[in-house]
């Protein structure tokens, strides 16, 4: 069976690959949106912290003999704790200045982190084995489904939806949304806003770390893996706008799929297709698909 001259098998595997990439876009842009909502900071170091998550998993497995599942829980905690350290010691002092300084600081942190990992591990990549329980593939009849890739999509969807549920439907989320609207008033009601800000940053960053662990077995773990991704994620954020949590998730996944489809029909354009979509969205709907200008 063929679709527009492309065998179904090839088509489905590219679509799955697109969904996998889309999951990473979704998790990272979700973290960026949550952080931006409360802190008004665009966290450039998000990519570097994603890289750190992947390296944490690699180090945990190869040097400490821990297994993948332990690292899946541990690495986000490590990255989150590191994020809290960044927020407490550096980012905190910049809130009263122009938002641009937050971007510049996190850009500097990105260079620093990449430099440190580069001086230890070099630029060539490390690989991490797929955990045993998820190795192999399932034959679905119309395609061969690699189990690990299915797991990546599933796990990230669960995490994204759990985040959405927490922010939109729980009491904690209500505080968070209120803090986004008017932090002074929320503080007057007795909520510890500075603590909330710290934890939000830690959580957003932990999401990036989680994405890093998920990515480690399917891609080459290199010090530069984050910075190439973060620029695409910025474009995703511009396309979706950062006003809506669900919007970030949907935009991330959709762009991953669009990228996958482009790889089938016009491979040369696959690395720029997200930017092309961004240009089109800017021309037609400058505020972004789900955006409200801030």
């Amino acid at each position, binding site marked *: 069976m063929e679709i527009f001259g492309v065998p179904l098998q090839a088509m489905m595997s590219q679509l799955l690959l697109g969904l996998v990439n889309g999951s990473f876009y979704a998790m990272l842009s979700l973290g960026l949106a949550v952080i931006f909502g409360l802190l008004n900071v665009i966290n450039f170091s998000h990519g570097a912290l994603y890289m750190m998550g992947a390296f944490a998993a690699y180090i945990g497995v190869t040097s400490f003999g821990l297994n993948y599942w332990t690292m899946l829980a541990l690495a986000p905690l490590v990255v989150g704790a590191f994020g809290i350290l960044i927020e407490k010691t550096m980012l905190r002092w910049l809130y009263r*200045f122009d938002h641009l*300084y937050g971007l510049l600081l996190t850009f500097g942190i990105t260079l620093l982190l990449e430099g440190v990992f580069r001086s230890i591990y070099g630029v060539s990549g490390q690989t991490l084995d797929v955990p045993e329980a998820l190795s192999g593939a399932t034959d679905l009849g119309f395609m061969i489904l690699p189990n690990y890739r299915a797991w990546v999509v599933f796990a990230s969807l669960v995490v994204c939806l759990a985040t959405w549920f927490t922010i939109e439907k729980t009491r904690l989320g209500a505080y968070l949304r209120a803090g986004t609207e008017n932090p002074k008033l929320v503080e007057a009601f007795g909520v510890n806003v500075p603590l909330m800000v710290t934890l939000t940053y830690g959580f957003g960053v932990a999401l990036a770390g989680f994405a890093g662990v998920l990515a480690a077995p399917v891609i080459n773990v290199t010090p530069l893996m984050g910075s190439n991704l973060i620029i695409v994620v*910025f474009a995703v954020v511009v396309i979706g706008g950062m006003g809506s949590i669900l919007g970030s998730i949907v935009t991330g996944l959709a762009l991953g799929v669009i990228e996958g489809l482009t790889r089938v029909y016009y491979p040369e354009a696959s690395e720029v297709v997200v930017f092309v979509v961004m240009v089109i969205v800017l021309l037609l709907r400058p*505020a972004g698909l789900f955006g409200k200008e801030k």
Partner: protein
Amino acid sequence: MTLNRTLGYGLALAVALAAPFVGYPVFLMKLLCFGLFACAFNLLIGYTGLLSFGHAAFFGGAGYITGHALTVLGLPFEVAIVLGVLAAAALGFVMGLLAIRRQGIYFSMITLALAQMVYFAVLRAPFTHGEDGLQGVPRGKLLGVVDLGNDLTLYYVVLAICVAGFALIVRTVHSPFGQVLKAIKENEARAISLGYDVDRYKLVAFVLSAALAGLAGATKTVVLGFETLTDVHWSMSGLVILMTLVGGMGTLAGPILGAFLVVALENKLGDLGNFLAGTTHVEWFASLGESVGIVTGLIFVACVLLFRRGIVGEIAAVLHSPVSRRRT
């Protein structure tokens, strides 16, 4: 004040004229080109309040066009430079038109994404030779007469180009147009309410900045005789931000000083590391040369946290403020 400024410019020019007799001309020319690049960038961040994260596209893009014009098309020096500048201006027009549709932090993200698109275009385009870049770009002759093969001759041509670019920036900043840009930076809503077509002013400033960044990039290609992907990579956009930040955003001389410091640091970091390793016997310093990223990252973080006004900005603040305000 004006006398001081005239004296300052005169002194700087005298130093620049004498410099090639003391230093290595090619390195000095590189400093000059990056100085102009940082000043062009500063026109946006320092005087219009727009943080472009995509200036590498103009710097490197113009470099490639000029390099191609000289190497393959065999065009004269002046024509090649002008073509590079025009290409950067055209690219700036398109990128500016798109990016100013969003404000603040989104503007930075859009310029970064568009510049990344340019990076991939350059990587894939046949005339740029991908990873190898352009090699052996000839310097040619100025107006068909003056041979630029001589480093000293080229130095004075480059100095003239950079001084002209810098003069244009100074003139722009002090013109009524520059005052409107400043108003947009301070309070965009008020500028709109006063009846200024803010988007058009932003776009003109963006194109001007892109063209001057292109002039710097085109000149740099001629000086060094090659052009590679480094110049269009996002890290170059970051580097020019660092230069401006170190020297002082929104000061005229700051970006030049910042560019000198950053370029010198990049070139001499290995020597500095070896020196430190030799004197302190700490082995780690010897590898400093390969850790440019760590050092630039540290400077970035330190500047943002401790001296946001940059070197020139801090000096100016100390000189011009009464004692009571000095501690702010």
